[in-house]
C-alpha cells in the first residue's frame, strides 16, 4: 500500500509539472506559429485537449486510492451501534451499490426528502451507525495530511456506476420541486459580482481564461460529459473532489459566501444538472486539471 501510494504520488507530481510545462510551452508555440487571433486560440484549445487526454489514464489516476479507502470505510463498523454502512440504502436497496449513483439524487421515503449521495451517506451514518458526523463533516474536503471520508466513499460508490448512464429521478413531487428550485437557483443573480451559475454556464464554447465552460442551460453533451466525470481527481489540488466541492468552488469564484455542505439548495442544483445530463455515461473517478 505504501509503495502504491508513493508511486501514485510520484505520478501525480509528474503530471502536474508536465501539465504546467506543456501549457507554458503551447502558449509560446501559439504565439510563434499563429500571428492572428483565431488560429492561436484554436491551437491553445487543441493543446489543452491533448493535455487532458494525457492525464486521463486510469492506471495513473490517484483517485483510485480514494476508491480503495472508500471500500474499506463502507464495511468499517463504527458509531454507537458499531455497524458498517452496508445496511445503507442508496436508492436501490440496502447495500446495493451497482448503478445506484446513476439514479441520484432521488427521494428517500425514510428521510422524507430528496438527497444527493453525500446527504444520504451522512443520513445513514447518523441513522444506521449512530455516528456523530461532526468530524466527518469537518473533513468534508481533504487537504494536505487530511483525508476525507466523504470523498473516499463517494469515489467508491460512484465508481460502481461506471459504464452506466444517468437516469434522473423526477417522478416524485419532491423531485419535481427540487428540479424547479435547482433551475431557478441556476439563474439567480446575486452578490458583489452580480453572477449566477448561468453567467458562465449558459452558452456553448465559452472559456474563463483558457478553461472551457460546460453549458448547463440545456440538456446535452456538455452536461453529460461534465456530470459523467465527477467525482474527479484534481491534479492542481492533488485531491479527489466531489460535485459538492465543485459547487463550493464556483460560489467562491462568484464572490458569494460559502454554501453549506450537503444543503438542500446544492442538491436542487445537482438535480437540475443531472437532468441536463440524462443519458450521459459515468466514468469516475476521472482526472482533471
Amino acid at each position, binding site marked *: 500500500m505504501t509503495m502504491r501510494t508513493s508511486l501514485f504520488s510520484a505520478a501525480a507530481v509528474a503530471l502536474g509539472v508536465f501539465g504546467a510545462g506543456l501549457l507554458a510551452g503551447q502558449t509560446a508555440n501559439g504565439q510563434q506559429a499563429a500571428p492572428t487571433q483565431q488560429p492561436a486560440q484554436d491551437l491553445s484549445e487543441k493543446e489543452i485537449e491533448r493535455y487532458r487526454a494525457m492525464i486521463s489514464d486510469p492506471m495513473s489516476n490517484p483517485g483510485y486510492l480514494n476508491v480503495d479507502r472508500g471500500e474499506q470505510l463502507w464495511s468499517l463498523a463504527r458509531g454507537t451501534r458499531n455497524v458498517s454502512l452496508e445496511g445503507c440504502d442508496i436508492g436501490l436497496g440496502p447495500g446495493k451499490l451497482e448503478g445506484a449513483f446513476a439514479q441520484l439524487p432521488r427521494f428517500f421515503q425514510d428521510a422524507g426528502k430528496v438527497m444527493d449521495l453525500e446527504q444520504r451517506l451522512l443520513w445513514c451514518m447518523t441513522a444506521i451507525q449512530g455516528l456523530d458526523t461532526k468530524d466527518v463533516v469537518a473533513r468534508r474536503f481533504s487537504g494536505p495530511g487530511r483525508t476525507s471520508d466523504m470523498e473516499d466513499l463517494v469515489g467508491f460508490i460512484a465508481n460502481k456506476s461506471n459504464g452506466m448512464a444517468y437516469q434522473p429521478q423526477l417522478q416524485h413531487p419532491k423531485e419535481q420541486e427540487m428540479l424547479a428550485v435547482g433551475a431557478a*437557483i441556476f*439563474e439567480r443573480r*446575486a452578490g*458583489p459580482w452580480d453572477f449566477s451559475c448561468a453567467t458562465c454556464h449558459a452558452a456553448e464554447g465559452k*472559456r474563463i481564461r483558457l478553461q472551457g465552460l460546460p453549458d448547463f442551460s440545456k440538456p446535452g453533451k456538455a452536461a453529460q460529459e461534465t456530470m459523467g466525470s465527477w467525482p474527479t481527481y484534481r491534479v492542481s489540488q492533488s485531491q479527489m473532489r466531489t460535485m459538492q466541492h465543485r459547487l463550493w468552488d464556483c460560489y467562491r469564484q462568484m464572490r458569494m459566501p460559502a454554501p*453549506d455542505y450537503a*444543503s438542500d*439548495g*446544492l442538491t436542487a442544483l445537482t438535480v437540475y444538472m443531472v437532468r441536463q445530463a440524462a443519458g450521459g455515461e459515468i466514468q469516475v473517478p476521472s482526472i482533471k486539471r
Partner: protein
Amino acid sequence: MKMNMNMIRTVMLAGFASSLAQPGSAQQADLPKVDPAVVEAYVAGTWRSTSEGWRARVVQDETQRICTAARNEPSGAVFDQVRDKEKATVAFPADGVVVGDWQRGAQVAQRGTGGQFTDTEQTVRGGNCYACHQMSKAELSYGTLGPSLTNYGKDRKFDPAEARNAYAKIYNAMSVLPCSQMPRFGFHKFLSEQQIKDVVAYLFDPASPVNK
C-alpha cells in the same frame, strides 16, 4: 409628475418580476414551476451558517431580481427602468479625470483575487478582466464570455468622451446595458475609483499594450 410615473413603474415592475420567475426559453419551458418564495427558502437554507457580515451577499437587490426574472433580457419599459436607475448610481471622479495609470490598470485587469471567502480583507482586489475579455494581444490566456477589447482606445480614436463612457461601463455596466452579465464594479464598491481609472487607462492610453 415624473416622480409619480417612476413610482407607478416600480410597483408595476414588482408584479412583473414575480410573474416572470420561471425560466422562459423554449429549452427550459418543460421545467416544472415553483413559487419564488420556495426558491428563496431553499436559498436561505443553503447559506444558513453564513456569518452576518457575508449574508447580505445572498440577498438580491431589486436590479438583480428583475434581471433574474427577465433572464437578462428585459423588455422595453423594464429595460429603460433598469438603465435609468443604474445610470443614477455612476459616480465620476470629482475632478473629472477618468484616465489613470495604464501599468497599474494592467495589474487590475490580470488580478483574479479579492472578495472570495478564501481571501482576507487585506487581499488586493482585482477586476479579473482577462477571465472574460481579450485585451493585450500578447496575453493568450484570456476568456471569451465578454467581447474582445483589443485596440479598444485606438478604435475609438482615444476620444475623451469614449473614455468617460468606459469609466461608466466599468463602474456600472448596467447603466449602459441593463442586465449586462458584467459585474457592477463601482456600484458594489468592489474596485476603487483609482482602480477603475487605471483600467480605463489600460484601455485608452496609446502606450498601453491593448492598443499595440
